Each structure stands twice: as structure tokens, then as C-alpha cells.
């Protein structure tokens, strides 16, 4: 590479002919009047910074001395990040990320100056995980902001952040965060191994990472937790888990995950232990209700009316007299209707959503009963099911339970209560066989770990939770002295 400015610029122009947003600005350096040029991308580079720290110093302040690379970096340019290169291709690559290239006539080195303009959304409360009590901060789309949030929440030298690049065509930064002296190094290595094996063009969202590193893609259950809350990530790190942050998305990933974790909310810890525990019990119960109620309805109505109290059975039968469908079809109609309503409510603009809920829920339900398509008891069952499923803090778990509910309904329609029991056993078998990064998904429930049960269905007082979860095999076992 020789140092002629005009020939270099010619090459740059040849490449950037396809990049209309790349600008070239030629000027001469004060004093020696040597020709120079900067190359930057519109919108990506910080123009104020270019004007103040590059153009102004070079066009005004430089004296008569010969310009060399070391003088420029050491004495002239008042910018923190400068790299030197000899490759035109590299210049173009860097310019497209928002840096500015400086070419000087007669100088073989070319400087790349860090002038990235970071336009990020301000830090807001995450919409998908609203809390009554807890920090009102959520991640945003900028990786550096997110890592800064983590640092600020947990300023600790042990908090390690390993940077990796993922995506072949659109290369993105990804950070694996963990506590060096807590997290089990086997788990950390496993995460690194799986992330480094990701081989895909582009990762638009951390959901891609989640699907590419999970243990079993056939399972209905999420084996990676995603969250927008830095406090949640920090709490997980302190337990010995590992977090994965991807540039361009506010959703951080937490591994390994256990099933009970997905029914917990950070509020369980922020509120006092009694309310925290009770709400958690409520959520476990709600999960069971939302999973099994319609299938139990079907099995009791179609197969074993004798197993429910006679009066109840008689009154249900009386309301079903005019219903022309079997209980499975009846339940399917209502369940599918409510799933459609829910999906529609999600897509609609915010002001219309609630109105839609009223129209759908109340009017259609009432009309369906009046028309004799479904029985009023079923409307109650479906409503209870839907409301119960709203108590589940994780959206992805909610969806899993919704899918499984339909399978349970078909089992009930085929084999009644027997089918529901077998479905439940099947589900349990699946959960005990599942692992997330080497940790059994069903833990801490099984194998029995009495110590970990302090933070399972009940959330014991903080003074009693002295140790970190044993299932994670942490290096430092004591949480509280």
C-alpha cells in the first residue's frame, strides 16, 4: 500500500459507489497544507465529534511539522479510540459501523477513529414484565447500555462479561455474563461452547440464540428464560446462573432454567415472605387449573358424571340439554374462541384492545349460551382457565400450558379421567427427562433437595435462605452469613 491520497480515494470511491450513505470529505491540513480526506457514513457517525475533534484540529491547530502517524495519534487527535490499518476493505467495513477513516497524502497508515453515534432508546420500564414493586428499569436495544445497567446493578469485580461475535453476514456482539467466583465453570463452558457453535446468517433477536442453544427443541417448555429486567438478571447471576445478552434486543437470556423458576416473579423476593409465598402457591395452583380444568370438565361430563356430586351433575346436565355438541366439541369451540380473542387483543392498537375483550368475552359468551351452542358451566370453566393462565409471569410458559391444555382435552375425550391421569404422568415423565444445560428441569422438586425447597413453592424468609441453590453446583455456596 503506498500513500497517494488520490489513488486511495479512487479505490474507496470504486467500492462506495454502492453505498450512497458513505461520504468523503477532502481538505488540506493546516500548516503543511498536505492533502487529506475523511470517510464517514451519514447517520452512523457523530458529526459533532468529527467537526470538533478531527476537522477542527487538523484544519486549524496543526503546526508546520511533517505529519506522521504517531504525531497524529499522540498529539493531534483528541479522540479516545483510534486504530491503524493498511487495508482499504477494512476501512469500508469500519466506516459502515459508524467509525471515521482518516487518509493523509503520503502516509501509508490509515487511521480509523471511533466516532460511533449511539442513538439508543432511553431506559424505560419493561412492558412485558410489569411489577408493582421493583426497579423501574429495563434493558434497551444497545448492548453497551445493557452491560452498563448490569454493572450499575451489581458493581462487583467478579461480574465477568465475555464478548463473542455471532452471525456470519450480519455480525453481532453477544455477551456472556456470569459471576466468576460463583457460577459453575462447567455450565459457563457449556454456554460458551453452544454459543460458539451458532452458525447462522443473522440473529435479529435473542430468541434466535435461545432456539439455537436449547437442549430439546421438541419440548413444549422453554429451556431458556428471557427477561427485560436487569434486576432479574443480576439475581440469577448471584444464584450462579449465566446470562446472555445480544446487541439489538432488550431481551436477555438466562440459563440454566428449571420449571419452578418460570412460575416465580422477582416480586416474590421484594415483598415480605408470607405474601411472596402465598402468591407463589397461588401461581402454581393457577398453572394446574389452566392446564387441567377443561379436560376434567370433559372427562366428568362425558365419562364419569357419577364421580361428581349428584346435584351438581344434575344441574350441569340440565343446562346441557339443548347443546347439540359433544363436550369435547363444545369445549374446543369456546377454548379456540378465547385463544382467537386473546391473539386479536394482542395485535390491536392499545385503545381498542379492552373494548375488544368486552365484546368478545361478554357478548359472544352470553350469546353462545343464549343460542344453546354451549352450556353456561363451560363458559365459567373457560373463563377460569383463561384468567388462571394470565397469572403466569412468563409469556412463553403461558403459551406452553395453553398448547398442552388442548392435548389434555383430547386425552380426556378419548379416555376420560384415565386419559387425564396418563396425560399428567406423560407430562411429568417429560419434565423429569428434560435438562437445561446439565441441570434437571424438574429440580429442585426432584431429586429431593431440602435446602433448595426454601425457594420453591414457598419463598422462605430471607434470613433462612442462607445458601445458593445446590442444583447449580456453585463455587461459593453461602449467600448470607
Amino acid at each position, binding site marked *: 500500500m503506498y500513500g497517494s491520497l488520490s489513488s486511495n480515494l479512487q479505490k474507496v470511491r470504486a467500492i462506495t459507489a454502492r453505498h450512497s450513505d458513505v461520504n468523503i470529505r477532502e481538505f488540506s491540513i493546516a500548516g503543511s497544507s498536505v492533502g487529506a480526506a475523511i470517510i464517514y457514513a451519514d447517520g452512523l457517525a457523530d458529526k459533532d465529534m468529527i467537526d470538533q475533534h478531527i476537522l477542527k484540529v487538523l484544519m486549524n491547530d496543526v503546526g508546520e511539522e511533517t505529519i506522521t502517524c504517531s504525531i497524529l495519534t499522540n498529539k493531534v487527535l483528541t479522540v479516545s479510540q483510534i486504530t491503524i490499518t493498511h487495508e482499504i476493505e477494512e476501512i469500508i467495513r469500519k466506516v459502515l459501523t459508524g467509525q471515521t477513516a482518516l487518509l493523509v497524502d503520503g502516509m501509508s497508515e490509515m487511521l480509523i477513529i471511533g466516532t460511533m453515534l449511539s442513538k439508543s432508546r432511553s431506559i424505560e420500564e419493561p412492558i412485558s414484565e410489569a411489577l408493582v414493586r421493583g426497579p423501574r428499569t429495563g434493558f434497551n436495544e444497545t448492548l453497551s447500555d445493557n452491560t452498563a445497567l448490569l454493572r450499575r446493578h451489581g458493581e462487583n469485580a467478579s461480574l465477568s462479561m465475555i464478548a463473542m461475535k455471532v452471525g456470519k453476514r450480519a455480525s453481532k456482539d453477544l455477551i456472556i455474563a456470569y459471576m466468576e467466583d460463583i457460577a459453575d465453570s462447567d455450565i459457563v463452558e457449556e454456554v460458551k461452547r453452544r454459543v460458539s457453535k451458532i452458525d447462522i446468517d443473522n440473529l435479529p433477536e435473542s430468541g434466535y440464540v435461545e432456539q439455537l442453544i436449547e437442549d430439546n427443541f421438541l419440548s413444549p417448555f422453554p429451556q431458556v428464560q428471557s427477561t427485560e429486567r436487569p434486576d432479574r438478571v443480576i439475581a440469577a447471576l448471584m444464584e450462579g446462573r449465566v446470562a446472555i445478552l445480544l446487541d439489538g434486543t432488550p431481551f436477555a437470556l438466562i440459563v440454566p432454567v428449571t420449571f419452578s423458576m418460570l412460575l416465580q416473579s422477582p416480586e416474590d423476593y421484594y415483598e415480605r415472605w408470607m405474601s411472596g409465598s402465598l402468591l407463589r402457591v397461588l401461581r402454581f395452583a393457577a398453572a394446574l387449573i389452566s392446564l387441567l380444568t377443561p379436560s376434567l370438565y370433559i372427562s366428568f361430563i362425558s365419562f364419569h358424571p357419577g364421580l361428581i356430586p349428584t346435584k351438581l351433575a344434575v344441574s350441569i346436565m340440565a343446562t346441557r340439554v339443548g347443546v347439540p355438541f359433544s363436550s369435547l366439541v363444545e369445549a374446543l369451540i369456546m377454548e379456540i374462541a378465547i385463544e382467537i380473542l386473546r391473539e386479536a387483543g394482542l395485535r390491536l392498537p392499545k385503545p381498542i384492545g379492552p373494548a375488544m375483550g368486552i365484546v368478545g368475552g361478554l357478548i359472544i359468551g352470553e350469546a353462545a349460551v343464549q343460542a344453546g351452542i354451549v352450556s353456561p358451566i363451560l363458559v365459567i370453566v373457560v373463563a377460569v382457565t383463561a384468567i388462571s393462565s394470565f397469572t403466569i409471569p412468563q409469556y412463553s410458559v403461558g403459551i406452553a400450558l395453553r398448547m398442552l391444555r388442548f392435548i389434555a382435552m383430547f386425552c380426556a375425550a378419548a379416555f376420560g379421567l384415565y386419559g387425564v391421569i396418563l396425560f399428567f404422568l406423560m407430562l411429568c*415423565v417429560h419434565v423429569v427427562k428434560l435438562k437445561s444445560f446439565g441441570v434437571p428441569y424438574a429440580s429442585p422438586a426432584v431429586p429431593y433437595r431440602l435446602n433448595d425447597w426454601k425457594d420453591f413453592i414457598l419463598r422462605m424468609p430471607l434470613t433462612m435462605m442462607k445458601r445458593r441453590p445446590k442444583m447449580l453446583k456453585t463455587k461459593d455456596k453461602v449467600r448470607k452469613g
Partner: protein
Amino acid sequence: MAYQAKDRITSIQTAVILANTMLGAGILTLPRTVAEKTGTPDGWISVIIGGFLAIAAGLIMVMLSKPFRGKTFYEYIGQITGKWLGSLISLIVVGYFCLIASFEIRVLAEVADFFLLEGTPSWAIIMVFMWVSLYLVTGGINAIARLFEIILPITIFVFVIVTFFGITLFDVDNLRPVLGQGVMPVLNGVKTTAITFTGFEAILIIIAFMHRPEKASKAVIVGTSIPLMIYIITVVMVIGSLSVDGVVTRTWPTLDLVRSVEIEGLIFERFESFLLVIWIMQIYSTFTMTYYAASLGLSQMSKRNLNGFLYGLLPVVFLMANIPKNLAGVFRMGDFIGNLSLYLFGAMPLLLLAISKLRGHKGEGISRK
């Protein structure tokens, strides 16, 4: 690889597996079978004695397995009796486990047909059940242990609640007089009750998977005590509520008792659905464990992959379950299994232990410790 050598279970899990394997069809029928034999209300004493006999037999098996750390019965039997006799015994044991498995699903089919699913063909009932079980056994002993750990607390919880509500019908006079006709009736019932505890022989297999086999004795004692308690409570409650004469005439006395309990004002006035739920779960666990033990035996004897046997044995067990023609035949099958178990796991381990001790002095098998 015949089985996953890396799989290890804790001593708690061992106890849980034993308890789940022992709890099975007996919950529904034990009060009748024991009352038939004793003819007096003293059946519960027979249960206690039977339980202790089961513990003793279990402990003998632990002693038998002790010199062969990390090995199942199938692997070390050859070292005690010689290769050919050992293979024969192993085959009989495999057959025995298959027999229990098929007996359990047959009883399940009978009960499900009678109480839950009139008209559903029993092959359908049995087949879906076996598939769910197959899904579990392919996960190995660890998955089995974890699932049993989920099932056992549910069982105990529901059982306690059902018994608690059953107390309204309980009448102590039905249990009197204690030992009114002497000890003989009690002893007559012991054989029946001891048979109910079949399943403890699973220790011969699972001791090989234990992290710390030295704790096996404790696991046997704890694991047997849980079904012992449940069986005592069942017999006391059922005979105490229905009286001896009422019990012997009913095929499934425990279910009949729970059906007759009606608590006004609760959502569920009747509890038999709850009892059936935990009972089906217990049948499931017994079936799974015995089925796993049988497949593992074949796999270790032939030194071939376990998975092939897990799939291949299903039709065999299915056909065996269809052998009895009617309910009476099913109960005869149960009696036959019980007698077989008495010889196979009551008498034989003692004999084997003696031989092993004798040979041990010659220092052949035991030096491998």
C-alpha cells in the same frame, strides 16, 4: 453398553423406588384378601408381621449384594452359582418381573373397565398405559427415580386426605376383639400380607445404581415402612368401617369404602376419583419398575443394548396380561405370583447368601470388592 453405568441414584431415591414398587394393586384388595384368610378383625397384625418379614427379606438381599458393588443381581448371580444355573435363575427372575408387570396392567384394565371406562376395550387401556411407561423407562433409572419422587408425595397426600374423611364411618367395635381367637388366624394371614409387599426384590437391581450402597439397608427399612404404614391404615380403616363380614363380600373393598363416604358441603362429596388417581399412579410405578427390571435383566444377560429389550418386551407383557380369562383368573394369577415370590425372594436369597459365604472363604467372588 448394557445399561448406563453413569446413572446413579441417592439413597432417598432408592427408598422411594422401593416404596412405589411395593405399593400397587394391594391397596384396593388387601383388606379383603387378609380378612378372608384370618376370618377375624386382626388382619392389621398380620400386615405388621408381613411388613417386617419383607424388611428382613430385603435386608438379606442387601447382604447378598454387598460383595458385588455396582453390580445387579443378574451380573453377580453367575459368580455365586456358576454360569448355567445363574442364567437359569436370572431367566426365572426376568419371567417373574414380567409376570408382575402383566398382572398390574391386567388389574388396572379390570378396575378401569369397571369404575372408569365402561365399554372401552381393555387393549386400548393397556396399550396407552404401556406407551407412557415406555417413554419413562427409555430415560433410564434416573428418570424413573425422579418421577417416583413426584408420585410418592402425591400418593401420601391424597391418601391421608381420603382416610381423614373416611374416619366418619370408622367404628372401633368392628376391630374388636383383638386376638379374640388366638394367634393362629393372624399367622394364617401373614402369607397374604407378605405377598402384598412384593416389589421389595427391586433392591436386587437398583442397589447397583446407588451412590452409596452401604446405605442400602436404611433405604430398605425406610422404603418398606412407607407402604407398611399405608397398608396398616388401609386395613384398619376398611375393616373398621365395613367390618370383616362386609369386607369379604366386596371385590374392591377400599373403593367401596371411599364411595360410601359423603361429605356434604364440599365441592367433592365423593372421593373415589382421588383414590383411583393415586392408585393408577401406583400401578404405573410398579409396572414401570418391574418392566425396567425385566428388560435390564435380559439386556445384561445377553450383553446387548437395553433399548431393544425395552421395546421388544412390550408385546410379551401385553400377551401375558391377556392370559387370565376373568377376574377370578386374575386373582389366581396374583396368588401364583405371590407364591413364586415367596420361594424366589424369601427362600432363595438365604440359600444364595450361604453359598456366597462359603465361596467367599475360598476368596473367589468377594475378592472383587
